[in-house]
């Protein structure tokens, strides 16, 4: 045996520490969910009806179960449980999660025991890991000179599963982590962590929720935002362009008025909802010629879809949770977003001129108009529309007529002289006196025809 060898292999302990160090628990969970969504997308990229993801998080365990198709034994062998990612790995288009480091990292991050079960048409298998045992596992290999040497064993063992001991009724994936690390267990037992996780998932998997996947967290259903734009007598503004490898699609128009907090811009990066109902300078409000958001803009809805095969090109902050507004890609989108707001704002201003009738009109439109969902907006064939044009609904000119041409004049005078003038002019009240004196002025100054 060659005594002079220096082991070049990283130890498993070191490896686990490295891959789990820079990820938050929340992100680790979201990585796992991304794998489920990738599965759903392989089944039907446009509609996830009938598919589900059930997440259970408590101080004792974490589990996620889906019926999103599962992954094959081959995928498990080649990608999912292999360390590092082979160069010939499949590039999953537009995918945020990948069976790369993500899944293992998430599992190692949370607990000391985990199991992963996958069922497809072809395979049904399970991998159970006790991290402590795996960490210490060694194996003996024979060297060229027939001497034997003990090295770290990085392999995982799988077992085939039959229907009796299965966690899955359909093709899908079941993942469970137990014997949680103390700090993870503490976190999972905290109500604020669970509610934070809920809103994170609702945002990050919003597009999948809009495609009707059912996601539950500890039995509670997560909600889609149901972002919709009127699409009948009013036609949305569409734009599509390419900047530095990122496809930018901007769709903007009118939406319902029920909840003012829904108004504003929504930004998706590879289908993750990164910005929601934004009404700040980030999305151009109050910058350059765009007005600050005002309640008159309540019907405004704008959606930006930025997609790239390479996630790194998207204008995301390093945490992937926000927009990097210094990126050239985002600046490019922003110039279009500004144009969209200006284009639609001319109509919104007219609605505001309806004064007291404005809200009734907004509600009426809501009742009359067909709507288009974000999923439809994203899949809309751009060649079918005139780009960068917003078609406003007609406003009945009779509704508009009254308000516009009058102003109100108000001033204070002494009570005594007002009484004298009122009686002298035979006015019934001060309002009439005001009108009388104004008309008197116009007449005396010969201004009536101006």
């Amino acid at each position, binding site marked *: 045996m060659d005594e002079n060898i220096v082991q070049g292999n990283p130890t498993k302990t070191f490896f686990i520490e490295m891959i789990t160090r820079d990820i938050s628990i929340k992100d680790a969970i979201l990585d796992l969910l991304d794998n489920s969504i990738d599965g759903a997308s392989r089944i039907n990229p446009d509609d996830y009806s009938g598919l589900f993801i059930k997440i259970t998080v408590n101080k004792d365990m974490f589990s996620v179960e889906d019926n999103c198709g599962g992954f094959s034994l081959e995928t498990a062998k080649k990608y999912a449980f292999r360390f590092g990612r082979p160069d010939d790995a499949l590039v999953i288009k537009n995918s945020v999660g990948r069976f790369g480091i993500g899944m293992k990292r998430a599992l190692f991050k949370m607990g000391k025991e985990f199991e992963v079960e996958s069922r497809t048409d072809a395979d049904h298998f399970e991998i159970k890991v006790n991290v402590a045992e795996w960490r210490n596992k060694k194996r003996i290999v024979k060297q060229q000179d027939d001497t034997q040497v003990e090295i770290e064993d990085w392999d995982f063992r799988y077992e085939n599963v039959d229907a009796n001991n299965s966690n899955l009724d359909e093709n899908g994936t079941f993942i469970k982590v137990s014997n949680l690390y103390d700090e993870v267990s503490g976190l999972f037992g905290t109500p604020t962590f669970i509610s934070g996780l809920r809103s994170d998932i609702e945002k990050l998997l919003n597009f999948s929720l809009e495609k009707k996947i059912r996601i539950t967290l500890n039995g509670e259903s997560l909600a889609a935002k149901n972002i919709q734009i009127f699409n009948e007598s009013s036609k949305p503004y569409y734009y599509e362009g390419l900047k530095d490898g990122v496809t930018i699609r901007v769709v903007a128009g009118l939406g319902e008025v029920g909840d003012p907090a829904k108004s504003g811009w929504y930004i998706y990066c590879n289908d993750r909802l990164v910005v929601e109902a934004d009404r700040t300078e980030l999305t151009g409000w109050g910058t350059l*010629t765009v007005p600050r958001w005002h309640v008159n803009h309540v019907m405004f809805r704008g959606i930006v879809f930025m997609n790239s095969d390479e996630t790194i090109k998207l204008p995301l902050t390093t945490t992937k949770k926000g927009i990097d507004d210094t990126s*050239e890609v985002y600046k*490019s989108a922003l110039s279009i977003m500004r144009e969209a707001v*200006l284009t639609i704002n*001319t109509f919104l201003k*007219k609605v505001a001129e309806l004064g007291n009738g404005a809200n009734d009109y907004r509600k009426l439109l809501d009742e009359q108009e067909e709507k288009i969902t974000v999923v439809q907006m994203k899949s809309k064939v751009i060649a079918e529309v005139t780009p960068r044009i*917003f078609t406003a609904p007609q406003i009945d000119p009779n509704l508009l007529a009254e308000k516009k041409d009058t102003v109100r004049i108000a001033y204070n005078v002494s009570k005594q002289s007002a009484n004298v003038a009122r009686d002298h002019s035979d006015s019934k009240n001060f309002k009439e006196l005001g009108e009388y004196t104004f008309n008197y002025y116009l007449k005396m100054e010969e201004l009536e025809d101006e």
Partner: protein
Amino acid sequence: MNSPKSLNYETRPLKFTERKMLLGTLLRLCHKYQGAYQYIGFGGLTFTDFKLFHKELHINEMYDIEGGLPLKKVTFNSPYSFIKIIPEMSTSALTKLDLSKKTLVWLDYDGSLDNYMFEDLSILMSKMPAGSIYIFTCNRELKDDETRDIYTVENFREKFGQLAAFDLSPTDLSGSKDYLTIKKMLTNVISKMIGDRNDNGENLEFLQLYNILYQENRGAKMFTYGGVITEKAETVQHLNLDGFDFIRTDDNYYKIDIPNLTLKEIDLINGHMSDASDIAKLKAMEIVTESEVNKYKANYKYLPAFFDVRL
């Protein structure tokens, strides 16, 4: 837009002079950038610029934006049936036009500066192709609609938000600098919009040509700014516009100031324009002043001549 009712634009001599000046340069630009233009403007009731640009520039596609006057009255007064009247306010009307066509647009606002003017500008600048010409006119006095006084810096900022320069001072809002403040706001929007387009793969520049001040006799103080969208690195020389004295590519203004001269005096000056000694002779006659001569010389090519005739 009520000013057409109170005054016939065609008899306002400075306005007339300005229009003729613009026409001179527009002829050259339309020649350079061949192909059909569309014209967008505010025709009022007289449609003076529509008539002029149709006949002189041969523009046949014309859009009249008219958000104030009754449509029937405007339609009746429209000189040509091909003029399309859009009975809406400018911002709304502009979003409905195909601005990807080569465009000559003169937004001759009769009011004082307002936010919608910048909205109009950014809608235009986000789409108009190279060769398109933008001309802006407004009352240059920066007065608050409510108080009728010159804006305070705070009120101006409140009204115009980010469009207002961060280092704005009260002098910038006064009569000596108001046009510069407006110009700066316009050019900021233009360069931002053009910059955005260049970031998105175009290669454009806005070349300023007009920076004109004038005041009709006891009338409003007006400011005209404008220029042409070009492919990068175009010059006034190359556009064959350097022969026009009133072209301005920087902050210096050209002021239209026309002298009050009789026809006989005009004839006299016309006969003494060849050189300095000629002018010295003219001065010696003590009929017209040097300042009148200079004003005349700067503008005579564009001056109107009004006659009272019986129709």
